[in-house]
């Protein structure tokens, strides 16, 4: 006997991808952001092979060419840099290194930080103390010093740079996660899971992590911008990525001295960073809603109306 009280108008569940697309379509900003990011990704993958040569082609007579000269080849539409190299091409080519460094550092720090944070929040006071004091140490270790030490001892390479940037960002994730875990683990559903015999691992990853995740995603997307800029600061000090490699951060720091004379040198790569961060953030806000059952109707409803 079923005492089911309501008989909802059952609409069959759509396949997963279609549902995601529907939800994405429902948030036009996120949709545009996703498209933008896909383009950026694709360009990052093919950029160096496609435009690498062009991006390195110097022309001292065409230095600091102003942007918006539609008469020229399209790669010059955003102007040229101090060596007359086409900025648009350079931005596209630089995308690869930039995304590699930024996503490498962000993912590494987020994963390690979150993991340690989960442990610190969930385990006994002793382990937690050790982890937290470690975080304190990293937090008060100036990032530049870490950079100098690591890059001096291990040599400069993209991987080492990623490691340096990642180390310095670990404490935020660690502390945020721990703080949230401390609160969430007191919630009843966590206790319910424990009663069912769920292992600590399961409780951490299935019950606690999903609640912390939205905050962490927000942080991570913001850190994307942070890491790109930090990388540019390191380059500026002579450690980190150096020409002829290019990243957006490096382009910004190279354009720095031309700020008042040729704004476009650092403006366009800056814009690239801003747009990427913005897109990531729009997408992470969207994801936050899409992953939250209590909020999800916002997307599903609109998706339905439109589609």
């Amino acid at each position, binding site marked *: 006997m*079923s005492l089911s009280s309501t008989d*909802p108008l059952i609409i069959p569940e759509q396949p997963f991808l279609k549902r995601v697309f529907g939800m994405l379509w429902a948030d036009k900003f996120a949709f545009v952001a996703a498209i933008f990011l896909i383009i950026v990704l694709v360009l990052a993958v093919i950029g160096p092979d496609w435009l690498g040569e062009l991006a390195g082609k110097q022309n001292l007579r065409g230095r600091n060419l102003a942007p918006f000269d539609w008469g020229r080849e399209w790669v010059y539409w955003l102007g040229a840099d101090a060596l007359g190299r086409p900025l648009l091409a350079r931005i596209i080519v630089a995308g690869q290194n930039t995304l590699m460094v930024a996503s490498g550092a962000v993912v590494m720090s987020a994963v390690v930080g979150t993991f340690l944070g989960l442990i610190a929040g969930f385990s006994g006071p002793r382990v937690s103390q050790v982890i937290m004091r470690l975080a304190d140490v990293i937090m008060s270790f100036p990032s530049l010093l870490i950079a100098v030490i690591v890059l001096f001892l291990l040599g400069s390479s993209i991987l080492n740079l990623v490691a340096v940037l990642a180390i310095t960002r670990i404490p935020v994730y660690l502390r945020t996660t721990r703080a949230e875990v401390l609160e969430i683990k007191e919630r*009843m559903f966590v206790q319910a899971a424990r*009663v*069912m015999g769920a292992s600590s691992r399961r409780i951490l990853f299935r019950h606690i992590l999903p609640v912390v995740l939205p905050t962490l995603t927000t942080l991570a997307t913001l850190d994307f911008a942070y890491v790109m800029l930090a990388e540019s600061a390191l380059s500026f000090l002579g450690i980190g990525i150096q020409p002829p490699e290019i990243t957006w951060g490096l382009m910004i720091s190279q354009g720095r001295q031309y700020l008042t004379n040729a704004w476009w040198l650092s403006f366009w790569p800056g814009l690239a960073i801003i747009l990427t961060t913005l897109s990531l953030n729009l997408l992470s806000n969207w994801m936050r809603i899409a992953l939250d059952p209590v909020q999800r*109707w916002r997307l599903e*409803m609109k998706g339905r109306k439109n589609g």
Partner: protein
Amino acid sequence: MADHLLEVRNLSVDFFTAAGVVHAVRGISYHLDRGETLAILGESGSGKSVSSSAIMNLIDMPPGHISSGEILLEGKDLLTMAPNDRREVNGKRIAMIFQDPLSHLNPVYTVGWQIREAMTTHGMAQQEAEAETLRLLGRVGLPEPEHAVGKYPHEFSGGQRQRVMIAMALALRPDLLIADEPTTALDVTVQAEVLALLKELQRETGMGVLIITHDLGVVAEIADRVVVMEKGVLVESGTVREVYKNPSHPYTKKLIAAAPGKGEMHRPAVKAEPLLVVRDVRKRFGAFDALKGVSFDLAAGETLAIVGESGSGKSTLARMLLRLDEPDAGSAHWKGRDLFKLSPAELYKLRRELQMVFQDPTQSLNPRMTVYQLISEAWAIHPDILPKAKWQERVAELLVQVGLSADHMGRYPHQFSGGQRQRIAIARALALEPRLIVCDEAVSALDVSVQAQVIRLLDQLRRDMGISFIFIAHDLPVVRDFADYVMVMRKGEVVEMGTVTQVFDTPREAYTRALFAASLDPDPDVQAAHRAARLERAS
């Protein structure tokens, strides 16, 4: 004719969900006058809470949507009122007691602060509000109000939280009080006090009371009129007597017929080898002795009901048996091993044998998991119980067993009514096929017909599979129907313990007798007689 205090006309509420539109309330109408008490009875999930939320303007819109109707407060439509005026109405003119006190209290503020705020928001001076808070907490029967005001919600027992909710709602002496299952977590003596308090206030201020309840006894005790809902539709209305004596709609008939407390009492067999031996368990919270030495035995296939005063330590005891809190002293031997001394690894192995249904269902369900995930998690943790291919089928089966339907599987907890959530929690506990289930007020939010169904289910499991139950409840008729042994608790101590027949038929202790005396009868006539007798005793 003057306007009614409250008139609901043709109200319909829909919810948007991924699986489609849920018509939670469909064109219901009723009214309520000053000084009157209207009870809404109905099956769990029939739209009672939703319709009252609509009156309070608390439905999230969207995904909710009031598709038709008017809600008139003294002739003025609340649905079309300007937001600022509307806000003034809440708290001051209409107040609400929520069904699920834990999640409805702000975890980071003291209860005193939260009650005071109701008053200061509407212009009362701080000092006055403080005094009033103390008075209110005293009136709802919370012990040591001076102490209680400074405590946080998580430091209270379920019933105590409910009383905090009540105090908060009564703070401004509203014209209309909406009480959504206000007494489910209260023991009968406190329940009686609270109901008396409502009546008294009603007399003083002419307050109209809209009470949502499953307890026919409460209806008989307090209500003037009653409406019955089923599947979002209002199926019957009338005075309490009319409806009880002459139900016209089949659902109403079924409901009244299902009222507990009429069947045979269990007669437990001679004591078998005890499965669980609890000895002298003690627990302190700060300076407060929550448990002062509790001991009992429990054998396989037996049900021990724990009844007693709200705040007497029942949930605390349950939580300690499951090692969610650490006891200060005592032992609990499960199949000869002391639960309190097990290492985490050993405990893990025992987990699937001991399960618990929590008192606050909302909070005990992970809001990010669907019903399917919630229930099947049991098997993900203990893969040997059921192969993955069968999960879907078994979840559906369990849902139907507890009176839900298979197509609820993809929904999330927030999309359910209080009673439905409670059933999900029960289904989850059953999924593990444990040896012992601790049910902390597990059926209190269910309407009597579903309650009967669930009790039957549990009883059957007990018989067929030898599952033991520790059944914490306030509802004495349910206890009477289901328990083998009854343990009465008060102030952290066991007052009386015995077989169900012994405790119910020949209670030894005064407190136990007081409990029975305060118990309510679903028959309005019987209840009226009780009331008269009580008044006589009092005077």
